[in-house]
């Protein structure tokens, strides 16, 4: 037991875990404050102009907004930690259930999107770095800058116009669950995942390139070369392999960003995920759903960062020993 606690990786992870817990607590405060920062009465705003006093009182007491604020805060934290995120202002469904229904669509889009991004970024970034200053490097750099600058929703609409409406190869929008209908799932996911993946791939290409360049300038790469190892071995065993460590971090951050950032792509492709849920909830002022979704996405964001840090500590001893 003592050995486990004193192990550098365990100590490192314990520190990171404590840090994440502090940040998560901050996130909880922000999410709780969200509904209280609304100017005026959130229940009244959510109900619109026509409602009965009974409906108003029922919603107010169901959401706990009639209690003193300190009590509301502690009961919110307590329920949130046990998985109870309240009920939707719109239809009274438990927010946790709504979120769990939407999660698979978003996760599948994010995972396929990040795979496409890696298929683009790894070869392009490595090639670009190994051919630094040549024409192919310049082309890749310009192309990635284009990808970073293009509005994703615009690209999505143009992709729909070309591949769905004009050529008729793929459906314009919609979603099929993977387990019910794998073929339909694949046909529906291609365009939205491509939209997500091209943008993320452009961003990641720049990171892969600079990571490989940084490693290539290290002393051990020069040593490996000077002791007569073949360029191939130096490139792949010494340079690329070590460059993959920082790439791991950026992949994790990108995955987390996609999970919380696919809102507009989900809207364009009518993809029934968390993003479209947040969008609809903001449009209809369904505060408990907004709070729940924001909390879930921020928590996933922290969790992915924690996992990335853990992997990092395992593969790079310098991190855990510092």
């Amino acid at each position, binding site marked *: 037991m003592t050995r486990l606690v004193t192990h550098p990786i365990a100590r490192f992870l314990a520190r990171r875990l404590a840090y994440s817990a502090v940040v998560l607590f901050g996130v909880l405060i922000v999410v709780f404050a969200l509904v209280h920062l609304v100017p005026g009465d959130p229940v009244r705003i959510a109900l619109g102009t026509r409602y009965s006093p009974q409906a108003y009182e029922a919603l107010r007491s169901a959401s706990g907004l009639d209690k003193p604020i300190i009590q509301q805060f502690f009961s919110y934290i307590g329920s949130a930690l046990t998985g109870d995120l309240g009920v939707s202002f719109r239809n009274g469904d438990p927010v946790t259930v709504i979120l769990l229904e939407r999660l698979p669509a978003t996760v599948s889009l994010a995972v396929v999107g990040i795979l496409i991004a890696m298929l683009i970024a790894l070869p392009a970034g490595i090639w670009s770095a190994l051919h630094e200053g040549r024409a192919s490097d310049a082309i890749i750099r310009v192309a990635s*800058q284009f990808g970073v600058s293009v509005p994703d929703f615009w690209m999505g609409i*143009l992709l729909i116009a070309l591949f769905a409406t004009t050529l008729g190869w793929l459906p314009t929008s919609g979603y099929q669950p993977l387990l019910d209908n794998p073929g339909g799932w694949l046909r529906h996911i291609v365009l939205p995942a491509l939209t997500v993946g091209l943008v993320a791939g452009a961003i990641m290409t720049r990171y892969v390139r600079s990571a490989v360049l940084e490693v290539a300038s290290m002393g051990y790469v020069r040593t490996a070369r000077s002791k007569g190892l073949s360029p191939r071995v130096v490139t792949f065993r010494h340079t690329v392999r070590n460059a993959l460590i920082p790439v791991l971090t950026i992949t994790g951050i990108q995955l987390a960003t996609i999970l919380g950032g696919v809102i507009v792509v989900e809207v364009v492709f009518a993809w029934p995920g968390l993003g479209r849920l947040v969008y609809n909830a903001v449009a209809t002022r369904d505060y408990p759903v907004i709070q729940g979704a924001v909390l879930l996405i921020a928590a996933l964001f922290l969790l992915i960062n924690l996992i990335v840090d853990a992997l990092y500590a395992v593969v790079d001893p310098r991190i855990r020993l510092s």
Partner: protein
Amino acid sequence: MTTAETNTRVSSWRLLLGNPVTVVSGAILAVIVIVALTANWIAPYGINDVNVPDALQGPSGAHWFGTDELGRDVFSRVLVATQASLRVAVISVVFAVVVGVTVGVVSGYRGGWLDTIFMRVVDVMFAFPVLLLALAVVAILGPGMTTTILAIGIVYTPIFARVARASTLSVRVEPYVSVSRSMGTGHLYILSRHIVPNIAGPLVVQTSLSLAFAILSEALLSFLGLGIQPPQPSLGRMIFDSQGFVTMAWWMAVFPGAAIFVTVLAFNLLGDGLRDVLDPKQRTMIEARRKQ
């Protein structure tokens, strides 16, 4: 100004002007800014001049970017919408720079418990994906231009706080700062004369990149109907409205999108060029947390 200082500035300018990409992107931005500032005078038609018989006309001499479903001139609307987009981006980034740099510099210079509190707040803000945080602000304040400015400003504030703090920490230990302090110089004087001028490089780079992403964020919020509200035209909303017509009137989608793309690309390329000259080491955090 000392000779050494003058030399650094001259060589920075020479480096900047020696990079063709930076020069071209700077020139494109200058044109975009001039066009945006004069949009109301140079737009050939009124932005809300409905002319149904002329609806959905392709690009022509009379309508360079064609007309939309109500016969409104797309070119005029793109010009005026670009102006609104730049206005939102500039005001929100100025907000982020002023608040973020103040927090970052004070945090880095003073250290101690204030630094801890400020940086934990920044950490919490970083735990939210950018767009989600912006949407949360819109959810609180309701849609509109002012909310959009505030939302984008709040989202980019922590980035400037981190960059300013990191740079302040490295400048604070420079000999000229400790000498100045040992001579009994006041904190405000040290901050304004020694710290801020010496951390300006990374901040200028970050400003250019943030303007690019602020334009994207505004377009995105307006696309979702949460940003600039009709009848004021916005590039994002024009793209949203084009969705029903994209196969028969491609120009309705292509031109507003191209306006966003070119402006964002120019800011990004300028930011890259500036970084090579002013801040070669700084890795920008902003790209990693890009809008989506």
